[in-house]
C-alpha cells in the first residue's frame, strides 16, 4: 500500500504544489544489437515505443537512458538526436532502458487544470440535486481522492486503491496548509507553496497515513 503523490490546486485551477511521494518502478533495460527490433517515434518531445512490445517493454513506454546515461528529451546526454544515434550501426551493441515517462512539470500543471474542469463537469452532469464535484476517482492502478475546501482550494491525493484513511489525510493536509503556508508571512495566496515547514509536515503526515491511516481525534 502506498500514497503516490499529492497535488494542491488553487481556486482558479492552477497547480500550486506537487509532491511525488512514491513512484513505483516499471522499467526494463535490455541490450540491443543492430538493427533495432523496435519501432520508435517522437511524441511530445520524447522518444516512445510505437511498435514491438517485448520483454517488459511496452508500446507507449519512453526511452529513458542509453548505456546507463539518462537521455534529455529526444536528445542523448551529449546532444545528439536519439533516433539518428540508433540508426548508426557503429553505436551497437547498445543498452537501452525503457519505462513510463516521468511527468514534466508542464504536464503536471496541465493535468491539474484538467482535473479542475472535470471536477466542475462532474457536478454539472449529476442526476441528483446539490452534488459536489468528483471526490474519488477509481482506476485499477490507483485511486484519486479530492477534497475541496470552502475557499475553493483542492487537495488531491493519488494512492493505492487499497490504502485507507485518505479522507483523514486530506483534512490533515488542509490543516498543514493552514498552519504552515497560510500563516507564513512570506506566502502570498494562490501562489505556489514554497515553505520548508509545509514540506516537512506534509512528508510526516504521508508517512503516518501510510503506516496507520489514522490521525486520532483532534490531532
Amino acid at each position: 500500500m502506498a500514497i503516490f503523490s499529492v497535488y494542491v490546486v488553487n481556486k482558479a485551477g492552477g497547480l500550486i504544489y506537487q509532491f511525488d511521494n512514491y513512484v513505483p518502478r516499471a522499467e526494463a533495460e535490455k541490450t540491443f544489437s543492430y538493427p533495432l527490433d523496435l519501432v520508435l517515434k517522437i511524441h511530445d518531445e520524447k522518444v516512445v515505443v510505437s511498435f514491438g512490445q517485448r520483454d517488459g517493454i511496452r508500446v507507449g513506454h519512453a526511452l529513458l537512458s542509453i548505456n546507463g546515461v539518462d537521455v534529455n528529451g529526444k536528445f542523448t546526454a551529449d546532444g545528439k538526436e536519439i533516433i539518428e544515434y540508433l540508426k548508426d550501426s557503429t553505436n551497437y551493441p547498445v543498452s537501452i532502458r525503457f519505462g513510463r515517462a516521468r511527468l514534466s512539470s508542464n504536464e503536471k500543471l496541465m493535468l491539474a487544470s484538467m482535473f479542475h474542469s472535470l471536477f466542475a463537469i462532474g457536478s454539472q452532469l449529476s442526476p441528483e440535486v446539490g452534488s459536489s464535484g468528483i471526490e474519488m476517482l477509481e482506476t485499477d492502478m490507483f485511486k484519486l481522492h479530492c477534497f475541496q475546501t470552502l475557499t475553493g482550494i483542492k487537495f488531491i491525493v493519488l494512492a493505492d486503491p487499497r490504502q485507507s484513511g485518505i479522507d483523514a489525510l486530506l483534512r490533515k493536509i488542509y490543516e498543514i496548509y493552514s498552519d504552515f503556508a497560510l500563516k507564513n508571512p512570506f506566502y502570498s495566496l494562490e501562489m505556489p507553496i514554497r515553505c520548508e515547514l509545509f514540506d516537512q509536515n506534509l512528508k510526516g503526515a504521508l508517512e503516518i497515513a501510510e503506516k496507520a491511516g489514522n490521525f486520532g481525534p483532534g490531532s
Partner: protein
Amino acid sequence: MTVHNLYIFDRNGSCLHYGEWNRKKEAGISKDEEFKLMYGMLFSIRSFCSKMSPLDMKDGFLSFQTSKYKLHYYETPTGIKIIMNTDLGVPNARDILHQIYSTLYVEYIVKNPLCVLGEQLSSDLFSTRLDLYIRALPFFSPRAA
C-alpha cells in the same frame, strides 16, 4: 440505493441509448448537448487517468463518485462505452455493466440484422429487456420509480 440513469456510447461518441429511472435533476442543457458533455468528460478522464497512473493500467478508469452519485464506467475492446449513474451505496458495478453488454447488447443488437451498428438503437425489445434488467438489480429500489 438506486439507479439514476444509463448511457451507451459507441466508439465515435454518438449516444446509442439513454435510459433513466430515478433521475432528480436535469443538467439544464438539451439531451444532445448532455450526451456530448458526458462523452467529452469521459474521454478526458480516460486520458487524464492514463497520464496520471504511476504504472501501466489494465482496465483503466472504473468509476468516480461525488457527494451525491457514483458513475460506473465500462468499455469493451470495440469501444462501446456503458455508463451507469447510481447512488453512493452501490459497490463495484463492473460485472453488471459487462452483463448488460454481453447478455443484452450482444444478444439483441449485434445479433439483430435490422439494427445498424453505430446508429441510435431503436429496438424496443432491447429497451424493455434493459429496463427489466435494471429494475431487477438488487440495488434498484422502487421508491421513486
